[in-house]
């Protein structure tokens, strides 16, 4: 029961950072939704803002770490070209998928979408984190700004979700060994 270096990085990229991302999103979304002065005391607003700042900043940092590790560490293993004459392609996921007619769309559509769309998530998450920290407690009294940030936050999560889903499905079809 051992993990190779590649499996370990795939795990960190997909499950470790992915789980953190989900946690931060859950905390942040609950924070945005419930940040209403009519529901909270002054102390409650302070507590919610602190949690919201942590949730949005962690989500932004994790989004950056996920795309950086994905693109610069894991992706080169995915797209590595096999040596000339190699017939056993399992160690070369991209070539393995393209060599199988039934699996080729996992690369042509799934990977092509995932590798690009994922990079939009950190831009959106950074904008949300900045907005939450910049407005601070004032956010509770700016419902339009709060709603805007909440929807951008959800969009960042949806974009990352598409990338994460295809990442999991592609890994199932052609794991990085």
């Amino acid at each position, binding site marked *: 029961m051992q993990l190779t270096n590649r499996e370990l990085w795939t795990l960190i990229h997909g499950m470790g950072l992915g789980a953190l991302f989900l946690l931060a999103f859950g905390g942040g979304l609950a924070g945005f939704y419930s940040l209403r002065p009519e529901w909270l*005391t002054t102390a409650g607003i302070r507590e919610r803002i602190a949690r919201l700042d942590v949730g949005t900043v962690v989500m932004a940092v994790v989004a950056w770490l996920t795309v950086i590790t994905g*693109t*610069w560490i894991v992706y080169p293993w995915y797209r590595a070209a096999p040596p000339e004459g190699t017939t056993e392609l399992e160690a070369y996921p991209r070539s393995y998928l393209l060599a199988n007619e039934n699996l080729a769309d996992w690369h042509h559509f799934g990977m092509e*979408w995932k590798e690009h769309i994922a*990079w939009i998530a950190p831009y959106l998450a*950074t*904008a949300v984190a900045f907005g939450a920290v910049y407005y601070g407690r004032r956010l509770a009294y700016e419902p339009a700004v709060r709603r805007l940030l909440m929807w951008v936050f959800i969009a960042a999560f949806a974009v990352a979700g598409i990338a994460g889903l295809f990442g999991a499905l592609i890994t199932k079809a052609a794991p990085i060994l």
Partner: protein
Amino acid sequence: MDVNAERADIAVTEREIVTSGEVPTAVPDGPLAAVLLAAGIGAFALGLFTTLAEASAAFRERLVLNSAVGPLSGKTVWATVIFLVAWAVLAARLRDRDGLLRSATTIFVVLTVLGLLGTFPIFFQAFAPE
């Protein structure tokens, strides 16, 4: 019954009424408009690079900053540089401005949707040479 009365007391004593003096003062929306616009510009740049790389082999080659990562290295590095530079420039220009959020949000949504379109395989692969 005693327990219920106690709980009601606690609820009343812990409830603080937010007075106008405790409401934080309003801040200009320019800095938020700046980061939203920068995010939209970054997303649009990524979509544009992705589509142009599919349409032109020469452009695709120029995007290879790292041979192991391929053209994705240039697309993502340059789009991120554009996002950060746009944020810095817009933040400096819009720092004290207010009342920009509605128009900035519209531009942000349009640019982000175009960015999403440009990174959608069925769209950008339509630009691949025959």
